[in-house]
């Protein structure tokens, strides 16, 4: 059996273990062992992948394995990874690992929480390892539905409304996606669901591409918080419990970007070059609008959720620039945003767990009260506004350099407009940092609060180390991603 299948198998076995667990201790044991194994497995995948590439293997996908599943429709259970998916697997396993520790004291129904959480992880990992359209789509939907109960049962605020809104909007996206996938299948003339095969040998007629490209791009774009389909994101993130916000903003929104990249653009490069301008405008709006909205929020989670809209918009924006540098930057932004937003949500969850409020007007001077958490918050903030040495800088720099490579006025103007988001990001981050951490203490009761426990420290330190690692040593990760992006940009240059 191919070792990539373990990415799906481990979460499933964990679910079995959780189902049989009797008390909190056993649940935690299963969760920790499983998530550590997943982390180890993704590191192993990375090492093996680099070794294989160093040995001169230049196939598009490595470690491929394909088994016939539904013969009448030629559906396979097909797995394989390239540089981009290896990076995404690494990101997902780090966040699942940190998420387990962030929900150490989840209440009520811990067993059910972890069961759903692991089902969500199964979907996420399965999506990143699949190279078959049907399998990919199936895992995509598997990752969506647990969100409903995770937010609805364990969430806070207007949770039932947010959970329903999020589920329906994302399922709406996947409805468009299903049309797109079936259309690609029947129009490519190959009778195949394999992504690489369709990209290399398929010929989807141009008039069909005009119909199918928007379907798939919008379908995945809903999950990538593309304007005007981003409205589920602030409500959903604000109502979700900590670990779910982390996984959702950190990984699940990346499914959207990854899908646009792997399915919409990879399979229909001609339509992508011709229709990119429409979506560039929409994602450009996401970038700036999300940042401005974050400036006026007072709820910590809403601030971060709108900031996610802005940053994920930048991912899609960069992907649509359709050149190697910008797309590499896009994937790095996925990694960077995934890690730092998970860090943000973890910290917000920890602060909320102590102060029982997320309103920045009711808090202040936390630096004196909980120095560890506050320092971590500052680091996350600096990463978000793009301080050199942390991951955000590397990613945004690459994106804007790549976008500016285009010589036409339209793309250059849009790039400059998108660049302004860096300034706006600085505004809302520094506003929160100043008010929340360094301002006067607003509530005298807060003085009695304690700093982070060991599991909280473990969760945040893991994420900070990764953010700093990408920021300080960007080369190995950008090389890894670049070679995953190149087959796609080669197709795009042929299409021109």
């Amino acid at each position, binding site marked *: 059996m191919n070792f990539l299948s373990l990415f799906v198998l481990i979460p499933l076995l964990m679910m079995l273990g959780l189902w049989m667990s009797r008390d909190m201790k056993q649940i935690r044991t299963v969760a920790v062992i499983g998530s550590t194994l997943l982390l180890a497995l993704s590191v192993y995948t990375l090492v093996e992948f680099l070794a294989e590439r160093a040995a001169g293997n230049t196939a598009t996908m490595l470690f491929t394995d394909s088994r016939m599943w539904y013969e009448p429709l030629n559906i396979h259970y097909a797995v394989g990874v390239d540089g981009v998916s290896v990076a995404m697997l690494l990101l997902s396993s780090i966040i699942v690992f940190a998420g387990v520790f962030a929900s150490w004291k989840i209440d009520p129904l811990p067993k059910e929480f972890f069961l759903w959480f692991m089902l969500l992880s199964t979907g996420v990992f399965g999506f990143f390892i699949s190279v078959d359209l049907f399998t990919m789509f199936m895992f995509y939907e598997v990752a969506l*539905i647990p969100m409903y109960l995770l937010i609805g049962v364990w969430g806070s605020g207007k949770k039932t409304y947010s959970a329903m809104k999020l589920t329906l909007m994302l399922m709406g996206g996947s409805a468009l996606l299903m049309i797109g996938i079936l259309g690609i299948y029947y129009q490519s003339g190959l009778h195949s669901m394999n992504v690489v095969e369709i990209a290399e040998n398929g010929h989807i007629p141009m008039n069909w591409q005009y119909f199918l490209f928007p379907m798939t791009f919008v379908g995945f774009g809903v999950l990538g918080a593309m304007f005007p389909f981003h409205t589920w994101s602030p409500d959903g993130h604000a109502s979700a419990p900590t670990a779910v916000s982390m996984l959702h903003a950190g990984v699940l929104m990346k499914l959207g970007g990854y899908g646009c990249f792997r399915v919409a653009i990879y399979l229909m490069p001609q339509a992508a070059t011709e229709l990119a301008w429409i979506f560039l405008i929409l994602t450009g709006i996401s970038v700036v609008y999300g940042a401005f909205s974050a400036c006026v929020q007072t709820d910590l989670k809403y601030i971060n959720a709108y900031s996610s809209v802005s940053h994920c918009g930048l991912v899609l924006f960069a992907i649509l620039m359709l050149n190697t540098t910008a797309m590499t930057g896009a994937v790095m932004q996925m990694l960077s945003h995934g890690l730092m937003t998970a860090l943000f949500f973890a910290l917000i969850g920890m602060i909320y767990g102590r102060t029982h409020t997320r309103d920045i007007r009711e808090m202040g001077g936390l630096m004196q009260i909980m120095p560890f958490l506050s320092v971590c918050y500052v680091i996350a903030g600096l990463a978000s506004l793009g301080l050199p040495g942390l991951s955000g800088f590397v990613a945004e720099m690459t994106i804007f350099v790549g976008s500016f490579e285009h010589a036409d006025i339209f793309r250059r103007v849009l790039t400059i407009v998108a660049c302004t988001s860096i300034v706006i990001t600085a505004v809302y981050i520094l506003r929160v940092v100043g008010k929340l951490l360094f301002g006067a203490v607003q509530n005298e009761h807060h003085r009695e609060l304690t700093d982070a426990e060991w599991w909280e420290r473990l969760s945040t330190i893991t994420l900070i180390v990764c953010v700093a690692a990408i920021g300080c040593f960007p080369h190995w990760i950008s090389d890894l991603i670049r070679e995953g992006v190149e087959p796609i940009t080669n197709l795009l240059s042929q299409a021109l």
Partner: protein
Amino acid sequence: MDYSQFLVMRGEISLLVVFLLIFLIDTFGGQKSLKGLSVAACVLFGLHTIWNIIPAESASAFGGMYQISPIASLVKTVLNIGTLIVLLQSISWVDTPDVKLRRGEFYELLLVTLFGMYLMVSSGHFLLFFIGLETASLPMAALIAINKKDTESYEAGAKYLFTAVFSSALFLLGLSFLYGVSGTLYFDDIAVNIATNHTPLLIATIAFVLAGMGFKLSLVPFHLWTADVYQGAPTQVTSYLSVISKGSAAFALMLILYKVFSLDPVVWQGIMWALIVLTITLGNLFAIRQKNLKRFLAFSSISQAGYIMLGIIAGSAQGMTALVYYVLVYIFSNLAAFGVISSIEHHSGKVGMDDYNGLYKTNPKLSVVMMLAMFSLAGIPPFAGFFSKFFIFASAIHSGFYILVLIALLNTIISLYYYLLVVKAMFINNENEGCAIASFRSDNGSRVSLIVCVAGILLLGIASCVYGYFTDLSLLGI
């Protein structure tokens, strides 16, 4: 006459044997043996299912009146499985004081309607088809009204009877036109005769036939009886009506359209297109507002019928496979939902959606089964409903119905909304003060049936061999 022709009707004959045995036990059995009637019925019917599980070869008997094909035989097996689950779920219900006196009738009427459906599925002549249709409908009215002391039950029975008779009349009118156009009632001969003889009367024929079958399938605008009948009938009968009756009617309609009107599919595909859009959309919109779970599932089953029709409109072997597969998955999902509803109704008498608030705290297992059923009906992976929806959409897309599938897909979002409302009630809402459903242990029959349903929901999609097997059979021709 060559009596060996009867051997072709293996399925019908073994069903008749089961019917006769139950009739004999019911008529001549003492008090003690009557107690075991419900279990005996399940066992006998189970044997009948196993006996017929290998599909029959294509054959025809009585000069082409009766025709059997592997796929038709498979449909009978699918119906058998569904009926067996219904019988399991009704074991404890038939022992309740109101029904106890008539439990023999319950089984006899049920098997007679099933016999009628068998005839519909494997007929080669409109006369036999019509006899099957009537045999499937009229005893059903008696079944619906079996709970004599319940006014709603016999109101529902009367409603069903009138609409059934009316739809049969329309259907017969269509047949008489057809006879006028083609001069015969044999399926194969009609197809040949009307190929060279296009008249506007043919369109009227198709319209009447579709209307007649539309009543059976509760397609919009012929759906008005559905909600009241589903609500009024005893839950076991409702579940039988919603899956078995609907599944057989869908296949029978496909049989007519593919065999008789196959040469000019554009005519009926246009009508069908409109019917599907109306059925799915209106069914969904009305389902949102329902508070009684039986009415809720009535509207949900209307919209599900619309999805089933997508397999017919495809007009291909792929569509046929997808349809039979969809019906099988739908049987498991819907019967899981009805199994939970009937268990809860049996123990607490409650069928409102609000009564289910906080059910997970008192009855976790039943809530999980209900949730799986809802997810499967909504088409969420990795449950079977996702696969059946995907395949039925794929078959329609293959025949070029992109817009229709898009409308159907957008409707799945509406349907997801109301299926999630049930999940929300059970898992998220707090239980009602003082009148929550107490925790209880359901009877063994329901437990077995629910385990079978859950196994079906979880495994049918993952195990691709089922769909592959269906494809092989449907490629052999209808």
